[in-house]
């Protein structure tokens, strides 16, 4: 395992220290998925499995081209198919590649209790470091997109790494390279946004007035973005969240509750300490013993000599 240069990550799960900021000029990368160019061929799925050496068990046909039926520790990306009849009554087959969105503000990372099990590199990739993963499943709860999956065998959480191993040597992710129609593009985030702009213009010229970019600001933007023909209704695309955000419940749990709890516990302990210091112990006095003996003695004879209770 090659160690990262310490300056190369900007976020690290369960860490209270400020990450190094020196390499502030590293380009942010992004994967742009142009749904309007996607033919749902699953080359991305295939390339992902091949490059990452993942093989799910062979499943069954379950009433759709969606196979395997869900993301899993062995399935890091999945084509989702939705048959949608539009207002004009024409059929649209909305096909979307599902997988980690590599949020700028990752819910998984926020939720993760294991220091360094989830990191975000300076280029924006959110990566799971399996070695440090404790398998608690908090990332699953933190993720607004329902992406991480916990393995039942090794109890580690898995998801798309955006092929951090390829990107780190200057290559594009496997799915990007494979995509036959260029529906998946990869580059700097700003280039990808520019390119998305051109695509959206083309789509508008073809009658998709609501075409737009999916780069949800609620999670600080994502490093996997979509060009959608119906950007006004992301949920048409097999339930892509309309307004994804880290759940306020998770926010409370991983936000305010943490300091509050420490303060609460600390205060309780301190209260005890200072009570001890100021008031001291509550001790039984000789008078008490006398009174006690008296009460016992008044009503009872001298106790028998017995074995220790």
């Amino acid at each position, binding site marked *: 395992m090659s160690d990262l240069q310490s300056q190369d990550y900007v976020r690290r799960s369960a860490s209270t220290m400020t990450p190094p900021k020196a390499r502030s000029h590293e380009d942010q990368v992004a994967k742009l998925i142009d749904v309007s160019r996607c033919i749902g061929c699953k080359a991305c799925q295939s390339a992902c499995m091949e490059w990452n050496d993942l093989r799910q068990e062979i499943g069954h046909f379950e009433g759709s081209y969606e196979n395997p039926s869900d993301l899993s520790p062995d399935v890091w990306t999945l084509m989702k198919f939705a048959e949608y009849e539009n207002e004009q009554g024409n059929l649209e087959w909305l096909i979307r590649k599902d997988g980690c969105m590599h949020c700028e503000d990752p819910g998984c990372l926020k939720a993760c209790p294991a220091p360094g099990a989830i990191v975000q590199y300076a280029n924006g990739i959110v990566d799971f470091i399996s070695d440090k993963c404790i398998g608690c499943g908090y990332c699953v709860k933190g993720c607004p997109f329902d992406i991480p999956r916990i393995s039942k065998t090794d109890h580690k959480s898995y998801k798309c790494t955006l092929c951090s191993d390829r990107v780190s040597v200057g290559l594009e992710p496997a799915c990007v390279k494979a995509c*036959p129609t260029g529906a998946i593009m990869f580059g700097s985030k700003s280039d990808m946004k520019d390119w998305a702009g051109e695509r959206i213009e083309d789509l508008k010229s073809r009658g998709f007035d609501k075409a737009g970019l999916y780069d949800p600001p609620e999670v600080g933007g994502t490093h996997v973005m979509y060009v959608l023909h119906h950007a006004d209704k992301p949920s048409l695309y097999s339930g892509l969240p309309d307004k994804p955000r880290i759940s306020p419940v998770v926010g409370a749990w991983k936000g305010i509750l943490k300091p509050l709890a420490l303060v609460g516990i600390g205060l309780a302990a301190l209260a005890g300490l200072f009570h001890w210091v100021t008031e001291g112990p509550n001790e039984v006095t000789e008078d008490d013993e006398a009174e006690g003996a008296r009460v016992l003695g008044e009503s009872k004879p001298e106790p028998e000599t017995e074995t220790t209770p």
Partner: protein
Amino acid sequence: MTNTWQDIRNANLVIVMGGNAAEAHPCGFKWVIEAKIENGAKLVVVDPRFTRTASVADYYAPIRPGTDIAFLSGVMRYLLEKDAIQHEYVRAYTNASLIVKDGFGFQDGLFSGYSEETRSYDKSSWDYELDEQGYAKSDDTWQHPRCVINLLRQHVARYTPETVSRICGTPQDKFLHICELIAATAAPDKAMTSLFALGWTQHSVGAQNIRSMAMIQLLLGNIGVAGGGMNALRGHSNIQGLTDVGLLSNQMPGYLNLPLDKETSFDEYMRTKQFKPLRPGQISYWQNTRKFVVSLQKALWGDAATKDNDWCYDWLPKLDVPLYDIIRAFEMMNNGQMGGYICQGFNPLQAFPDRGKIRRGLSKLKFLVTMDPLDTETSRFWQDFGPQNPADSAAIQTEVFQLPTTCFAEENGSLVNSARWLQWHWKAADAPGEAQSDIWIMAGLFHRLRELYRKEGGAFPDPILNLTWKYTDPVDPDPEELAKEMNGRALADLEDPATKAVVTKAGTLLDGFAQLRDDGSTASGCWIFSGCFTEKGNQMARRDATDPREQGIAPNWAWAWPANRRILYNRASADLDGKPWNPAKPVIAWNGSKWVGIDVPDYTPTTKPSDSVGPFIMNAEGMGRLFARDMMAEGPFPEHYEPLESPVENVLHPKVSHNPVARVFDDDRAAFGSPKNFPYVATTYRLTEHFHFWTKHALINAILQPEEFVEIGEALAREKGIAQGGWVKVSSKRGVVVCKAYVTKRIKPLTVDGRPTHVVGVPLHWGFTGQARKGYGANTLTPSVGDANTQTPEFKAFLVNVEKTSAPMTA
């Protein structure tokens, strides 16, 4: 393909009909997306199902399987009626003006010359009226009632939008919208490309489907230009190469025909090949045929082939029937006329129609040899695999050999892609276990047979004993040596006929087929490949991807036949004066002294435009044929005939409902079903996750599409009480498939002749070996009948019934 994959990006309109390019050829399809993005192109898809290609289309229209000719004839009618044709192109480059013989006619579904008994045509009336010099008469004013364009106008007049919709089930408004889009490409600087595949070929009228679109493309002036053409997206990686090298029952390398019984002598054989030009000034490339054949014979039999023995003409087998195609082969097997069969990388038990018949046929063989990297179903046809392959092993007397071969990664060699590029590939690793290359196996078999004939004698051993085998390692010939043999070399010093100077020394590899001679001084195993491996080295291994105009032509990447030409008929990309029709996307242009441009011109670069040599030099008149003369089995114009199994009568001519010249064996005819018992139209196809029957052996692909299913529309599912993902029994007259149902909005009932018609989609990938779940295979259902010209089986339109059923015990 007439053009290249990348050239698709130059199109203004891409029509995918008779194919499903996005699913079957995703990486080639990228150029369609590129055309949309970079060239503002529109994509139109016409398909019975809303496919993954349709999912990115600008416009989609449904069509009933097997009715494409009606649709396309309707388009032709529209173009002619609206005069949306490229006049100058049509006049100069097509046979629109030529006059057809008196006596040619068409009535009630039949062209002139039909014989009921032989179920074939006497085609003598399907020809031009010739003048005294033997040239075809012409009327450039198009006034003559029998000039081709007027006959065509008359022929397609019946295909009104109402009729088209009645036959195809395509709503009229959708049909007309597509007509409009197509008509817009008649402008000289606009191009439409047609991408098609087995969706057109696998019909009893397959060749005519393609012809119909080719005629449209000629009318629009879209052949030969950048972004145009007829682009057959071929299936397997080297199916183009195998066809080029002539591995078909009636072929020899380079599209030379195997002799027929009636061609009793070499001269007689040549007489029918060397077509005379039908127009003044025209050159006919077939005039050179003798050079190609003699060079082939020299390559095959070397010194044994001499002028005196007609270059061993009699050592070639002669054909008594037009084709010994696979449908015929299995008919012969079933009739006990065959003793052995060798399947080299081919899995007919999965791939050919009427699986039951295939299994019965194989069971009657004495021996079966399979050569394959994978454990194929065919090699295990004798083994019982339950309902997916019921067999009584003990009763099957066939000896079976399963020979393990290398795969692509374990050998050197060249493959010819759909755009006719010969690309070399290199070995990356050794084959597993004892697997050997097909070359090694064929050599091993050949040596043993030759040895047996040497020792024992036997039937006509001469061609075996004298076959050239001058390879450095005779046991395992080097692919490079074989490539050189196909390329050809000079056997003697070649002299310039005029100066008598030696221009090519004996033993030299040839630069191209222009150097071939008919006097036995050259040898070339495949004339169209001549130029692929020259003294400059292996041209197929070239890797310079430079694309001079960014127009999709990389002339120095690998090598394309013929003569490294990338766009066939590129002469037609320029007008009569040699100026490109579309100045923005020129292919070649006349610069005053020669043809220049990004591609190799169709003929000698110094041929002046004023020489009026037509661009279509493979045709004797040099023109694109709107009228096919005698080249097609069922007529010079395409006509709509219903599939052999069809839910309706032919509304145009109920008495001649089906292709009148389709060859149907009696037992196959008995196995056709009627719409009464099998009311739904079925069509078979591939899914993008799989490649035929190979990828079910690959774990990833098995994961991506694990199990057999059929696709049915929601309406039919409701009618039949079929649940999403529920079990169904799909049956035809020939067999039953029990699998799951994919109930989808993507297949809607079509209104055909006033009645709702349901389509059932049958993907074809599943069998009983490999890693995916066991399946019955689509060919359990399909009828054993082929196209009348090519005998390509009618996989794309047949009849089935669908019923709800319960899960099988084994599932």
